């Protein structure tokens, strides 16, 4: 049996049928040249795996994760900000973004116990919190930590923004129209309120997973 590269390569992947694998094994026993060739192929495989490690745990991955969790129709600010957020730092201060009264569901302008706990403790993307989850976190232009969250309540479900000031978390924007419908589509104009609040808050790009965990451990105090 002549051991060419195609046979050796398939042998390496255990991709031959049983008889062929056995025949190659037997032929290798008497063919030192083919053995060396096979060993070099194995060494090349190992070196290739070492030279292309999985890229992970960085800001880009955190942003892509947040993007996926937003679903098929991301709000405008995220579409524009995402790929370039690494370098961008939008200036802007907000002195108390006022909620339109009719869009603030009862009990959410000051977070209820579930929301407060989720805002304090849950990493972005964690779906555990009784219909409440955090999409992403960032530091506003005025230095406060803010978190974009999703919540379902009797009064309706949607997306909101909460920022942590000296008195704890405060919901600064809430938009029930952002909820994705069962068909997976959103109403035109959905997310506009949150978009507006995000751009008024300004600040830095979304925090990556490591920064977020560190902030949670510090109880969201400044480092």
């Amino acid at each position, binding site marked *: 049996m002549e051991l060419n590269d195609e046979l050796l390569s398939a042998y390496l*992947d255990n991709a031959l049928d049983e008889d062929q694998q056995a025949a190659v094994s037997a032929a290798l026993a008497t063919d030192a040249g083919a053995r060396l060739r096979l060993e*070099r192929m194995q060494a090349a495989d190992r070196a290739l795996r070492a030279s292309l490690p*999985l890229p992970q745990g960085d800001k880009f991955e955190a942003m892509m994760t947040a993007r996926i969790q937003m679903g098929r129709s991301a709000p405008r600010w995220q579409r524009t900000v995402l790929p370039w957020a690494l370098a961008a730092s939008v200036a802007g201060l907000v002195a108390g973004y006022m909620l339109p009264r009719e869009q603030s569901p009862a009990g959410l302008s000051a977070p209820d116990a579930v929301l407060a706990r989720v805002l304090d403790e849950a990493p972005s993307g964690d779906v555990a919190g009784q219909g409440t989850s955090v999409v992403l976190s960032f530091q506003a232009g005025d230095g406060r930590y803010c978190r974009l969250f999703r919540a379902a309540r009797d009064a309706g479900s949607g997306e909101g923004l909460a920022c942590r000031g000296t008195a704890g978390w405060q919901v600064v924007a809430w938009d029930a129209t952002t909820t994705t419908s069962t068909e997976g589509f959103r109403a035109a104009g959905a997310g506009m309120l949150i978009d507006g609040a995000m751009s008024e808050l300004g600040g830095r790009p979304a925090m990556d997973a490591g920064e977020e965990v560190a902030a949670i451990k510090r109880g969201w105090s400044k480092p």
Partner: protein
Amino acid sequence: MSTNTAFSQQLVELIPRLRRFARSLTRSAADADDLTQAAIERALVHQASWKPGTRLDSWVYRIAQNLWRDDLRAHRRRAEPLDGLEVAGEDGRDSFVRLIEVGEVADSFQGLPEEQRLVLSLVVLDGLSYQEAANVLEVPVGTVMSRLARARGRLAAQMPASAGRLRAAK
């Protein structure tokens, strides 16, 4: 778990492997992340055309390949070489030999034709079967076998002469 949630979770888990696949395809970390983002956007938009129960990675890899062919390659912005020379967690005994091997193989890999880089990426890095790789690349299994053999043959030929013997002696 809803279909949407399952889809999102799988897509999130796929991000690192999708980025590595894109790096094999584009040979540039920056282009790879652009491509990754574009593929994710397209996957989200066309979520309904993915069949639950089939491999999400194959489907998204095909999206990435099509995007790269159709569009992004023409508009690529950067061509920084990959710097992937991080030799992780080895026992140290042969780390010097490994470092040489890794450097050599990284250069050789960059020099391979796209079709050979992709088949190596899918089978050697991602651990896909020949049939699964054939599905992603939309070629017959025999083509996967021969491309892989040519690619491995070229990498093996460019390995330092000592590599095989040192390993054989261990």
